[in-house]
């Protein structure tokens, strides 16, 4: 549960859709690592970002506040932020801090990609 060092990776899933995976403790350093990956994907033209938190079981409010900054940045660009593989506690924390009011939450990556790419074709 208490992996200190977060592991973050990023991929371009399709045109305009980027994936960031993060496993570990989302504190200030973890949040910043996710933000750096998100910024790189946005610089490559991604307006929709999916953050997959499978393997992340503990977070703190400083880390989540950095995720809120990513959300704001995407909203400024008329983009969209989505999450998948959240534990119930992380989901509740995002709800309390307002992330889920503006971001989409999906059960797993497959559901998320299907829904996001489905929306893009409408």
């Amino acid at each position, binding site marked *: *549960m*208490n992996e*200190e060092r977060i592991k973050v990776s990023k991929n371009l899933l399709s045109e305009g859709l980027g994936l960031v995976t993060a496993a570990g*403790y989302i*504190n200030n350093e973890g949040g910043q690592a996710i933000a750096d990956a998100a910024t790189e994907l946005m610089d490559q033209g991604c307006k929709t970002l999916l953050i997959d938190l499978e393997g992340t*079981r*503990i*977070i*703190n*409010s*400083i880390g*989540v*506040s950095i995720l*809120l*900054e990513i*959300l*704001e940045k995407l*909203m400024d660009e008329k983009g969209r932020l989505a999450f998948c593989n959240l*534990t*119930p*506690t992380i989901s*509740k*924390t995002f709800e*309390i*801090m*307002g992330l889920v*009011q*503006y971001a989409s939450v999906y059960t797993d990556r497959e559901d998320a990609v299907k829904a996001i790419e489905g929306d893009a074709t409408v």
Partner: protein
Amino acid sequence: MEVVLHLPVVPNVELVAAKAVETLGGALGMHQTHVEAASVAMVEACLNAMEHGGGPVTVRLHSGNHAEKPCLVIEVEDHGQGFDPATAPQNSPSRVLGCSSKRGWGLTLIRELMDDVQIRSEPGKTLVYMCKYVESSP
């Protein structure tokens, strides 16, 4: 069953306290979701204590009863200047987006994630008492 930790102010030391929640909560038979909620509350309480207390933090965990229900009790104590819990900020999402500072969520999260929270604070000592029922709704 009791665990007492004296935490120095070093990066990520709050994870030591979270690990204690995981171990004791598991031993009490708490559902994993409740353990994780209590762990996040513990992390927030430790971060607040280190940030505002400025020195070492004492953490106590033990089993107890609250409202005649078995629970995990967590106490986090610091020796800072104290604060008035009644006027502490209660954050809400509408205040955060578009705002330059997104900090100040600790107490809000603690109150939402735990089943009972009491704060006693005076100059030189702040004690955050919180409990999570062994069996409670996630």
